[in-house]
């Protein structure tokens, strides 16, 4: 009985010592998951997922803190590809979050724009040009239709139109 206890305890201690050691010695591998996840997102930075941008959301997913169905612009397709990458279940897209789709762009109505310049810093992709007190314009080719600027226009003269119109 005593022997048994000693032997087993010895065994346990020995093995755990090994574990602790290896845990020390092994180099922590660089975690590329977040990047892989991000590359599957639309990367239009609309923040509708509830994170400041695609990267933060990607990191949240990679860390397993966020569901994979929070990106409206990405749509079902993105959810599916994320599920594939991470071996998770496919979830229905969370449509409550927003409606941004990449086929629309913002357009500034020249007649109403007062050149307050507030929309410029908001645009995550610098798609709005114009200086103080002059009419601003959206570079359609850069605009992702993320809707962020809409809220910031005091005279709301920004609206979304189909991309090819």
């Amino acid at each position: 009985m005593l022997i048994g206890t000693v032997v087993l305890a010895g065994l346990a201690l020995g093995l755990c010592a090994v574990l602790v050691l290896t845990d020390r010695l092994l180099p922590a591998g660089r975690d590329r998951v977040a990047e892989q996840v991000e590359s599957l997102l639309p990367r239009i930075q609309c923040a509708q997922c509830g994170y400041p941008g695609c990267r933060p959301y990607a990191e949240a997913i990679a860390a397993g803190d966020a569901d994979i169905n929070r990106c409206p612009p990405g749509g079902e397709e993105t959810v599916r590809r994320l599920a594939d990458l991470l071996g998770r279940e496919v979830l229905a897209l969370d449509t409550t979050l927003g409606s941004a789709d990449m086929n629309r762009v913002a357009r500034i109505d020249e007649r109403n724009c007062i050149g307050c310049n507030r929309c410029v810093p908001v645009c995550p992709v610098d798609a709005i040009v114009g200086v103080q007190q002059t009419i601003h314009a959206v570079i359609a080719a850069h605009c992702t239709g993320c809707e962020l600027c809409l809220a910031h226009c005091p005279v709301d003269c920004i609206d979304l139109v189909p991309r090819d119109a």
Partner: protein
Amino acid sequence: MTELMLVIIGAALVNNFVLVQFLGLCPFMGASRRVEGALGMALATGLVLTTASGISYLVDRLLLIPFDLEYLRLLAFILVIGAAVQLTEQLTRKLSPLLHRVLGLYIPLIASNCAVLGVALLNSTANRSLIAALFYGAGAAVGFGLVLALLAGLRERAEFADVPKPFQGHAIAFITAGIMSLAFLGFTGFVRL
């Protein structure tokens, strides 16, 4: 040499651990959604299987039997396996984070993966030589990896099938596994042990 080959074939096909002896089913079902994941899991399990069967063999011969502590066998083996698994867990987490994400819960589960314990116990009861024990472990690992990969492939294809609603998801996976084990019955009587 031929015996050793027989040992491997026996463990891998004839008495396939998963489909015939019902060992290691949880990872079999859980890690077979994608072929990539399955291969990773196969590797991890193979690692644990062979190392664990080797070490526990030594523990058995050098510690338990001399002090006639056979009644501690389960305890000792499971301890060894647990350690081996934790080691694998560390390895994957640090060397392939993505795989670690994909396999998620299932790596710790190798610990309780019956296959591993099964190998260790069977080795000690069927008193083999160390080499034979290692081969047996390897054979089991091969068998496990094989059916895991096969099932993964089949499940990927089954996703395009038009399965009746109640059977979608896991149920059809079990049906598929069932037919696989039907097929593996063909190996019965292969190695007349």
